[in-house]
């Protein structure tokens, strides 16, 4: 079954068209990278899928169900978890509480606490459980956000620039973590990403956005050969040179 289907999504901000008719589908268990220059609409696309931004036109389907007009919280409970480009943690609460909030449906507080600790353990943060979220380092904050999303038992995970600003060691740790999650839970991963090297360790399929249009959908190794992609990244005059 298709985990996610985006059909003809359009979005403008005050006359400025940011998404111009985006369509694609993602199979369950697949990992897809969304790349493109700054301002190409990657984050907006993730926000439309997550429900933070409502599209002007088009539809979003998750596991065959039309979620176009659902609140973000409903989408979260349908199994769409996400992280943010600039981490949005509950800063004045502890790491443990951050995860507990995402877990809060259907169980008692002590049971929730235990479960939250397990999840923190999984992302390697259990030693920081009692620390305030605002006191964590960037790499730790990114992990905590991931842990919080995992607490939802997601079937789809939307990751917005999860590698940005991290050192190679941290990047490798998160890549390994994501690989493990994918194997153990068959989670569908969608990564909007700048750090292509890390992305290519995870994915067989890349979507390229340019000025709100989807200009490429295929294997990473074919991306570098595609004229439109080169044009989008380097500008018109580089096309054809050196080939």
């Amino acid at each position, binding site marked *: 079954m298709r985990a996610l289907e985006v059909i003809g999504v359009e979005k403008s901000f005050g006359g400025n068209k940011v998404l111009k008719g985006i369509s694609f589908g993602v199979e369950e268990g697949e990992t897809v990278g969304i790349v493109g220059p700054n301002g190409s609409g990657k984050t907006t696309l993730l926000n439309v899928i997550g429900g933070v931004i409502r599209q002007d036109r088009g539809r979003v389907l998750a596991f065959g169900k039309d979620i176009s007009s659902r*609140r973000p919280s409903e989408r979260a409970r349908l199994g769409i*978890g996400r992280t*943010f480009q600039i981490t949005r943690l509950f800063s*004045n609460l502890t790491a443990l509480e951050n995860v507990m909030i*995402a877990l*809060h449906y259907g169980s008692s507080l002590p049971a929730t606490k235990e479960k939250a600790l397990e999840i923190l353990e999984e992302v390697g943060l259990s030693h920081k459980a009692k620390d305030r979220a605002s006191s964590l380092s960037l790499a730790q904050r990114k992990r905590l956000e991931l842990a919080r999303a995992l607490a939802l038992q997601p079937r789809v995970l939307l990751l917005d620039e999860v590698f940005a600003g991290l050192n190679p060691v941290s990047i490798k740790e998160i890549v390994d973590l994501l690989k493990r999650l994918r194997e153990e839970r068959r989670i569908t991963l969608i990564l909007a990403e700048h750090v292509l090297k890390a992305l290519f360790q995870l994915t067989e399929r890349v979507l390229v956005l340019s000025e709100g249009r989807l200009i490429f959908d295929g294997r990473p190794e074919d991306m570098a050969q595609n004229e439109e992609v080169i044009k989008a990244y380097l500008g018109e005059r580089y096309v054809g040179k050196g080939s």
Partner: protein
Amino acid sequence: MARLEKVIFIFFAVLAVLPLLLPDWPYWGRVLSSALMLSSLALAQNVLLGYTGYPAFGGIAFFGIGGYTTAILMKSYSVPFLPSLLVGGMVAGFTALIIAPPLMRLKSHYFAITTLALQLALGEVVANLEFTGGTDGINLPIYRGPFEGYFFHFMFLFLALISFLINLWVDRSVFGYALKAIREDEVAAESVGVNTVLFKSFSFGISSFLTGLVGGVYAYWITYIDPTSMFDPLLSVKTFVALLLGGVGTTIGPLLGAFLLEMVSEIVWSGLTEVHGIILGLLIVLGILLVPRGILGVR
């Protein structure tokens, strides 16, 4: 449970037997009732500001709604006090619940000033309508019955206790965690499955229900109400000064702040009614400039 919170329960127990111990009870009864009333109001607003992050500066609108509903039911329909009070609280709570979704799209000082406008507007409506007694207000019968002389002390004590228990519950329940998530970041709260509109509306509803109950008891206690006294911006500001003084977002801060403010005003300027407003204004200005984070210094 934290040690300080246990102390608060002992404090409540002491307040319950105090009528037997204190000389000059009519005087102290009045002072304690005022302090307990302000405590309840501050605790009610704490649910909304402290845990949910929404400052309902005009929250006294619901004090007025509760008070007027109680008074009208008792006076015009001869309903006994307790059922009238309960209806008063519920009318206040449900009104808040209904207006919350559009109103709570506003945040911070915009939310604050809109609720203040609501409070003043309700005062104007009540002053202009027939069945609310207009600017003449409503006279209520004087309470006669068991515990005469202590009745309102126990009513206010009960309300303060309920408000305190609700704060304790919010502080460490699943519901409360959802509210805290909203306070910290609404977009993130939604992204982990918290329906923010629902939860913040409930928070507003609970806080206004409590405020409405306080208004109802106040109306019966004071026996005469009018639009100016029931929708008084001075009461709004006193509530928030108590709350900010004690410490927002803690369970005991609001109680501490309310008792401190009420006791100080009683001791320092009970004889100086002429300059009461001047001192209150000065206190607010200096308090916010000098202790912007409250006595407990949280957040």
